[in-house]
């Protein structure tokens, strides 16, 4: 089982709550995939507490642990204040820390990220940093107090899947004991499975499920992929070979000539 910040998680799938056709479909997708965590955010309240309250009622009914995020924050200061407000609003000190460098790539700003991670860890937050595969940045996040790392494998929402498998392998090899969660860039269940096979501990998804033709079916497919990927990792896969090797024994072949 995967344990982060002393808490044992019920699965290796974290699911985002945005962009679903309806709150009901979000709820069905969550029931179909049983994620360990649901990510949520906070936004300006409009018109008397009615904004997205249908959404909020649905999420509370699901009874799944929440991981608030600081999505859209472009500075450490914004992210810190947003995290403080999220802690009160959602009643949890877990926070998915996003500090975004610039718009078109939604790439983590690693300087703002480390600064915010230090400040929030000092305030007792359990920080889940959205980061890159940069190992030097990862070391500073761990020094700052993070007990989990969430590298991207491709730009957010790009659905491209792992773009640099060597970099993912290096990060896994360099931090054998740190929970590593691939956050962002996954488009297909086979992408999620691939990173689990590499030994990553979990994945965080949103667009790939919410944007599918059938989000509920896709949520289930990802849940199975994550389970199978971990099982494959634990079962010891074959290494690729250059030459072909027969499966059926060649000993004892008949001769009909």
């Amino acid at each position: 089982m995967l344990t982060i910040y002393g808490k044992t998680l019920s699965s290796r799938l974290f699911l985002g709550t945005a962009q679903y056709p309806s709150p009901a479909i979000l709820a069905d997708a969550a029931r179909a995939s049983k994620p360990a965590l649901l990510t949520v955010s906070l936004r300006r309240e409009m018109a008397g507490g009615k904004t997205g309250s249908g959404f909020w009622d649905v999420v509370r009914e699901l009874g799944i642990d929440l991981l608030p995020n600081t999505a859209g924050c472009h500075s450490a200061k914004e992210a810190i204040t947003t995290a403080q407000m999220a802690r009160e609003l959602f009643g949890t000190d877990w926070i998915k820390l996003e500090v975004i460098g610039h718009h078109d790539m939604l790439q983590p700003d690693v300087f703002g990220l480390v600064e915010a991670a230090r400040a929030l860890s000092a305030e007792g937050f359990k920080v889940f940093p959205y980061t890159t595969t940069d190992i030097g940045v990862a070391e500073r996040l761990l020094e700052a107090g993070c007990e989990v790392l969430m590298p991207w494998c491709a730009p957010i929402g790009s659905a491209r899947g792992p773009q640099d498998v060597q970099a993912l392998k290096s990060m896994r090899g360099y931090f054998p004991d740190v929970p590593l969660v691939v956050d962002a860039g996954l488009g297909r269940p086979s992408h999620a499975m691939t990173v689990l096979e590499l030994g990553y501990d979990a994945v965080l998804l949103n667009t790939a499920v919410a944007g599918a033709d059938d989000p509920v079916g896709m949520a289930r497919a990802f849940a199975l992929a994550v389970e199978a990927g971990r099982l494959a990792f634990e079962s010891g896969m074959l290494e690729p070979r250059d030459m072909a090797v027969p499966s059926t024994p060649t000993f004892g072949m008949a001769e009909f000539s």
Partner: protein
Amino acid sequence: MKLIINGCEAQVSATRLDALIRELDHQDQWVATAVNGKMVPRDRRVAHALKEGDRIEILSPMQGG
């Protein structure tokens, strides 16, 4: 008194943050508040006096990835 609430100018009668939340008909437990860029926790709203031109942020739960 005139405030900037969630980015929009508004004329309100409330003089304290807790009263403002009620005046705006928000559910007290489902919003988080900040004044002039600093968070104001729920239990401090009652003590938090508002000043002309304060920038108020009132945030609630939303979908997130």
